């Protein structure tokens, strides 16, 4: 049995890097934290720095890890199921659908904080189904799918703006949510989202063979005995839940869901288990590093991580396209 040794070492390296990035994220910030503060915290004594660590840094870093994982997992699955490398959750409106649901929910039921993740899942899932069926009706080619996604995306963004316009006192700060950021994370939302993302990732790893067979094309998957309709629904549901979980507390972070699965496919070749693991780790790593940079580079000011992601992500993505041009 030949093993994919290269992918295995990449997974290990990424895990170590992620641990290092989390450590860096905890130490860096506007207020200095020392090793002594952590030791004290572990002994149960909380000083000023310990309080910052426990109530500000830790939720924030955890949020970055969870949102990164959730968006990357969603992107990885959607790209396989729709057989389209351009189908990032931010491009085809999945994030926008989740965002619209969150904004609508918080405008209509301002006291319903705990329900936001669920509104977000529902929005993401309905959007991905809608895009899939429009794409199929209009010819099921790669480009019609992306175009219908782009149309749905801009419609939903418009609808979101409309909700803002009609309810100015909405709890959500419009800009911060749209740009995407991890400042001032709501802990109860984070907890729900964290559990959801971990469960989704475990389920995906459990069904990695099915995902890989689906990736061979729907006709081949069918002839191999995979109930294609059921699994398409199942995988899109998982992707929507995962993206929805991330959006519910981190807002509309772009590019992770598009960029990270691309990088993962380049290094693993697309065998599902390695592809999923690398996507998830890379997503968490990238967002943790970017968020740490976003709040330290211009300290004591910070910029929303969504801005940094777009500014870094887009050129990096283009560089990737040029670098690997013609290799596949």
């Amino acid at each position: 049995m030949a093993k994919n040794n290269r992918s295995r070492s990449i997974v290990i390296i990424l895990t170590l890097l992620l641990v290092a990035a989390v450590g860096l994220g905890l130490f860096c910030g506007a207020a200095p934290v020392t090793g002594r503060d952590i030791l004290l915290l572990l002994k149960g004594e909380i000083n000023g720095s310990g309080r910052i660590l426990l109530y500000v840094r830790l939720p924030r870093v955890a949020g970055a890890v969870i949102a990164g994982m959730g968006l990357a997992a969603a992107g990885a699955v959607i790209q396989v199921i729709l057989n389209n490398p351009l189908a990032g959750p931010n491009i085809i409106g999945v994030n926008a659908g989740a965002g619209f649901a969150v904004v609508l929910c918080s405008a209509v039921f301002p006291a319903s904080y705990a329900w936001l993740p669920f509104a977000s899942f529902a929005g993401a899932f309905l959007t991905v189904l809608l895009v899939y069926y429009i794409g199929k009706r209009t010819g099921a080619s790669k480009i019609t799918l992306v175009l219908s996604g782009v149309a749905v995306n801009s419609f939903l963004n418009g609808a979101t703006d409309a909700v803002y316009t009609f309810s100015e006192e909405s709890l959500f700060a419009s800009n911060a949510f749209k740009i995407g950021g991890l400042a001032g994370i709501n802990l109860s939302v984070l907890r729900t989202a964290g559990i959801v993302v971990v469960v989704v990732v475990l389920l995906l790893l459990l069904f990695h063979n099915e995902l890989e067979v689906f990736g061979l094309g729907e006709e081949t998957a069918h002839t191999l005995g995979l109930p294609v309709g059921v699994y398409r629904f199942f995988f899109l549901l998982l992707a929507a839940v995962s993206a929805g979980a991330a959006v519910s507390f981190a807002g509309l972070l772009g590019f992770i869901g598009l960029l990270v699965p691309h990088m993962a496919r380049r290094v693993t070749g697309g065998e599902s288990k390695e592809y999923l693991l690398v996507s998830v780790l890379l997503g968490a790593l990238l967002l943790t590093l970017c968020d740490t940079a976003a709040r330290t580079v211009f300290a004591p000011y910070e910029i929303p991580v969504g801005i940094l992601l777009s500014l870094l992500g887009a050129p990096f993505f283009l560089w990737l396209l040029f670098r690997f041009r013609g290799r596949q």
Partner: protein
Amino acid sequence: MQEKGEIQVCGLSAGYDRKIVLDAIDARIPKGRITAVLGPNGSGKSTLLKSIAGLCRKMTGKIYISGKRMEEYTQRELAQKMFYLAQSHPDSSIRTERLVLHGRFPHLSYPRRYGREDYQYCEQAMKQTGIIRLRDKRLGELSGGERQKAYLAMALAGQTEILLFDEPTTYLDIQYQTELFRLLGELRDYGKTVVAVLHDLDYALRLADWIVLLQDGSVVLEGTPGQVWESGGIGEVFHVKTGCTTDQEGTIHYYFG
């Protein structure tokens, strides 16, 4: 009573959405033989194959596989009996061995994990098709011919009695075409029922044991290559002049123009 591996199509109308491509056709595909499905573009060759594979909307009619109606099988049972090799595949860069291994997918039960036996079948199939040295290469690194052989190995690893090939030689250069036809012949020797949509009429007539000739969604002719050739139906359907010649080794070659 039908034999194992035989396919019988009765009064089948099939197509996509509301468009009917095949119009109430009857056809028989004998077991353990190579059947070539021939016909001009748009005559419904691929639709016939896809209907048998369960990938098309069936409006009316019945398809019997080994004497049982298709609907009486579960999808998994059918997958263990029959493999359909699609005309084109999405870009994939998984390793060749993984691809071939997925031929064993219909035989897995929950949770779907491949075991020792599956790896053995996979190895055997890669040897048979001559791609064992490519096992750790990614599909994206293979040439068109090598990739087609990898898909063929996937079909073999599944050990199905029936193999449906939708234009298996498209995009292949002559060397790989010849090799592919040789492999199809080997499959017949193992007792498999092989159905292939083919474009190369000369090869089809020489290789196949049975021919189904389609035109405008109807079966025009059905029979052995000899019968089909004698009837002159090929020339009529394709609007070409036909002829044949025998080479020094005694092989008959057909030509069209």
